[in-house]
């Protein structure tokens, strides 16, 4: 059995900021980042509303297909993002997402990686930077559904 913290459970049962963003005002931009697929068993679509002048994230919404910790991590991510500039957001690590939730079981750390990658994707989309697909990853697959390797996780966590 996974040992989830109360906060993970709370964010799973009552997730904040689920859904999409469709409406924006002048001077604002909406961008979306996606990772995963139904084949992997995990997928996250992250929507951000950005104030173009200040580069501050005004709103963040998520849609997640995945396990309880994936859902909780996505929701936690959106909570962490609002009010940050894009640069601040980019320095956010998956470890901070996990810490915000009071920790994740080791086997579930990769669920928070997904949030970080979706964020990267959303911001890169907004900035028009092509995405690095981490195709150079080596090492044993530890989460076949998501295709994250050992090496990659270590890189992200540390």
């Amino acid at each position: 059995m996974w040992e989830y913290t109360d906060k993970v459970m709370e964010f799973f049962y009552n997730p904040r900021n689920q859904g999409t963003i469709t409406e924006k005002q002048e001077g604002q931009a909406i961008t979306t980042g996606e990772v995963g697929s139904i084949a992997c068993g995990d997928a996250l679509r992250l929507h951000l509303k950005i104030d173009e002048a200040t580069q501050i994230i005004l709103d963040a919404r998520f849609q997640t297909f995945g396990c309880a910790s994936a859902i909780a991590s996505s929701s936690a991510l959106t909570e962490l993002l609002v009010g940050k500039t894009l640069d601040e957001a980019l320095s956010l690590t998956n470890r901070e997402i996990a810490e915000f939730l009071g920790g994740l079981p080791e086997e579930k750390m990769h669920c928070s990686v997904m949030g970080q990658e979706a964020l990267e994707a959303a911001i890169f989309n907004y900035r028009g930077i092509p995405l690095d697909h981490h195709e150079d990853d080596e090492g044993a697959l530890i989460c076949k559904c998501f295709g994250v390797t050992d090496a990659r996780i270590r890189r992200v966590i540390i």
Partner: protein
Amino acid sequence: MKDCIYLDNNATTQVDEEVLGAMLPYLTLYYGNPSSMHTFGGQVGSAIKTAREQVAALLGAEPSEIVFTSCGTEGDNAAIRAALAAQPNKRHIITTEVEHPAILNLCKNLERQGYTVTYLSVNNQGQLDLSELEASLTGNTAVVSIMYANNETGVIFPVEQVGQMAKEYGALFHVDAVQAVGKVPLNMAESTIDMLTLSGHKIHAPKGIGALYVRRNTRFRPLLIGGHQERGRRAGTENVPGIVALGKAAELAAYHLQYGTSERELRDYLEQTILTIIPDTVLNGHPVQRLPNTSNIGFKFIEGEAILLSLNQYGICASSGSACTSGSLEPSHILRAMGLPYSVLHGSIRFSLSRFTTQEQIQKVLEVLPGIIDRLRALSPFNSD
């Protein structure tokens, strides 16, 4: 946990109160070692004898054909190893892709030791293709090992047909009946099965006890070597309370098999209602060739663990995949072998009932499940289209 709604009986079952009553004296007063010479040991010996008869009766076997083990895994391991040890010149094993890890992982291990293993495939309803079996059998086949019924889908294999074919090629025939025993009638006296595994904790006996049926005159080599317990077929001081419990559990299982329980009706009601009122749901496994207590249902576009955890909030216990693989992150090897689409693979839940399951419990599940599925689908990026 009295008021927990336990629909995970293929993982393990509650100990029947009568079973507990039968075993308790052997945890207290009658603690003698059955191998001891004094009266104290002797009393215990006769309790084991009775239990052996009870287990034999459930299987339609002779008491001397029953070997007590510590679990289903031990039975499976012992059977395969015995079959190989008894026929050192044969180096080929046939099994299926959907076996329990107790067989699959053992076979993978044996491959590394130079054995060749054929893993028979299943179709999208979880059924074997007997012509594939026919094509795989050779004079070099030491043992054919298939499960009677699948732990995740409940799909039942055509055991006697498989046994018939195995015999034609002189192969030993082992059946992992851990999920079938107590749920379908068995009669070893008229079977092609040489060895059959069962596990106590799946039939309302406690964990830590099981049995292996070994047909009379089958050449056998013990997995555990030591003292002469179990007529030399399984060394180690006998788990007397466990054995007595398994005997009683077998007796009760035989009774309920004959006089019936409401398991099947409740299962059908649960299954039909879910498939009817919740959209994008599918039944996994053959609808008819199946255990009466098991229902494996795919909920498209959402993920199994999230469903389980939500059910758990209401005190409902079910599972995705088998208990021993649910710790891993991979989708069930069984559903994958059936070639199910990804949308189903990740969102499948097994409900497994027992004779203790009630109408009220099923009703409660049906009340909360649609809301859970709705909520998770609303969170899912794949549902908006």
